[in-house]
């Protein structure tokens, strides 16, 4: 029995064959694990070493180097706001502050939002600043007002499958 779900195991095996070396599959495999579980645990890494003979140290180096990989269980939605120069010039700090405050207030009022906020580096959408990502969805020109709207919109939706899987495994 594999540590991973049948579906994930198939994806991993596909990646192992897809590139010239097995090691090249480390980044895509970590993306795939995260797509399913929302984050990557030490147990996941050890299982990759045991089942697929990838080096746990190599994987951990990659896991801790790249900022997209999450090493702790996250909230269902990650509101990532670009804080690099162009977005900063266009008021990204205000957007970040507004989202932060909204999350904190909701927490205080006992109705926690399924959100966490991250100020991130350049998202490559500098002409449409401030640029943001909510999980994999891109939203540009996100003023503080627009940000709060987005929080309402997403909060009203059914949680993403990865967030449900993440909660189940916790």
């Amino acid at each position, binding site marked *: 029995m594999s540590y991973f779900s049948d579906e994930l195991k198939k994806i991993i095996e596909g990646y192992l064959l897809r590139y010239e070396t097995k090691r090249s599959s480390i980044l895509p495999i970590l993306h795939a694990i995260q797509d399913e579980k929302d984050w990557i645990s*030490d147990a996941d*890494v*050890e299982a990759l070493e045991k089942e697929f003979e990838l*080096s*746990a*140290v*190599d994987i*951990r*180096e990659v896991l*801790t*180097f790249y900022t997209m990989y999450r090493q702790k269980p996250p909230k269902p939605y990650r509101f990532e706001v670009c804080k690099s120069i162009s977005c900063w010039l266009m008021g990204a700090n205000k957007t970040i502050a507004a989202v932060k405050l909204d999350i904190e207030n909701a927490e205080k009022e006992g109705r926690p939002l399924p959100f966490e906020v991250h100020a991130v580096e350049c998202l490559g959408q500098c002409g449409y600043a401030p640029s943001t990502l909510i999980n994999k969805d891109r939203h540009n020109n996100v003023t503080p007002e627009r940000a709060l709207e987005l929080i309402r919109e997403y909060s009203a939706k059914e949680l993403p499958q990865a967030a449900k899987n993440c909660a189940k495994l916790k």
Partner: protein
Amino acid sequence: MSDTVTLSIDGKDVTVPKGTSIIEATEILGIEVPRFCWHPGLSVAGVCRFCMVKIDGVPKLQIACNTSCAEGMKVFTQTAEVKEAHKWALEFHLINHPLDCPICDQAGECELQNYYMKVGKYSSQMEEDKILKPKALDVGDNLVLDTERCILCSRCVRFEDEVTKTSSLGIFNRGDHSVIGTFPDKKVQHNYSYNLVDICPVGAFTAKDFRFKCRVWFLKETKTICPGCSTGCNVTLYENKNQRQYYRLKPRKNMDVNGYWMCDYGRTMYEHLNAENRLASPMQFGKTVSLVLTPQYTNEEYEIIFNQLVARLSFMPVVYIWRDFNEKIENFDGILMRGDRNSNTAGLIKILRSRNINPVILKGNFDALSEQKPSVSFVFGPEIEKPYSRIASEFACFAELSRVVYFGTSKKQILNNFSLVIPTKVFAEKNGTFTNFKGLEQKLKANPLVFPAMLGIETILSQNEV
């Protein structure tokens, strides 16, 4: 096409094989270009950016470790620009270093300290808060890791990847939060781990058996040969001469024998040398015709033993070679350590052959010896007892013989059962020769004795009436 190139470094000409790096060429000339990440036994990482040199005609300074020598190249290691670059490179290394030298075991042999004195001597400009990182991590049976002291030269990672091929260390995170480490809850587990302490230019890796024991400036060095196995690694033995106390061994470069490394087992070869474990005075209990030898004495000692015994007895006693029943002489770990854990098997065999002696091998089975019923047995026991996995029961076999004169170095209760016990010197206290597994003869150098009155086999056998 010529296979060599000639270049000048600081005005001195040197001819080197093609492909030689500038830093290797400076080594030949005895010029020291400061470096942290470069190590002659490892691949080139080129990350510390310390070994900057000026090459005539090249606008930017270049690193000496990744630049190949070229015909007619003019290299300068001491220009004002180069010196300034060295100073800044050192400062960058030190801004987040904790400067906890007073409690660091590396102090006195730390490259950060040494280079500060050689190329630094500036006033620190760092006024910001330093980055805090994990400290005093238990990362192996022999190792403690302080990631704040680490300068991320990656020597240890390359050693794990290239020499032992165990790859148990990695550099995690990025930027100035990068840290060396093992996978959580995993350890460095192999027989070469102390080399990580040696190659670490700072006090990030420290040795559990040396931590907080002794300041390195109290230690005197003796160049000698490791008695731990038949490879005969070239080593330096460190002794606090005032205390007559041995603390550690470190490898000494010999490309024909051990390269730059030695094994962890060999590192323990100082433990039995110190007073608390040593026989200090003769113990007399009771005369002889069997001779039991172990393959751990020097060639010179074997010659004396045979010459003196034959001179006194006027015949050659029956010669036994006592070895461990369980040893796998042909074993080899592929790096340094050999299955024959005796330092001088090859020397003993050569001497026995030259004297046409056919010894009886005692290997687990001592029947041949007890059947001979010797009236007196001379037993030259092993200095290093670790390879003798049944030593206790084998001592008991000797104790059943009528009169045993035992020569040895380490204290133990069972010696009370012998007629006469004569203490002898350890490898660190002897001048002499070991012949290694491939027949290479290497010299030992004597240190002052832990017990100044201690006699060598040569003196004991010539003074005492047998």
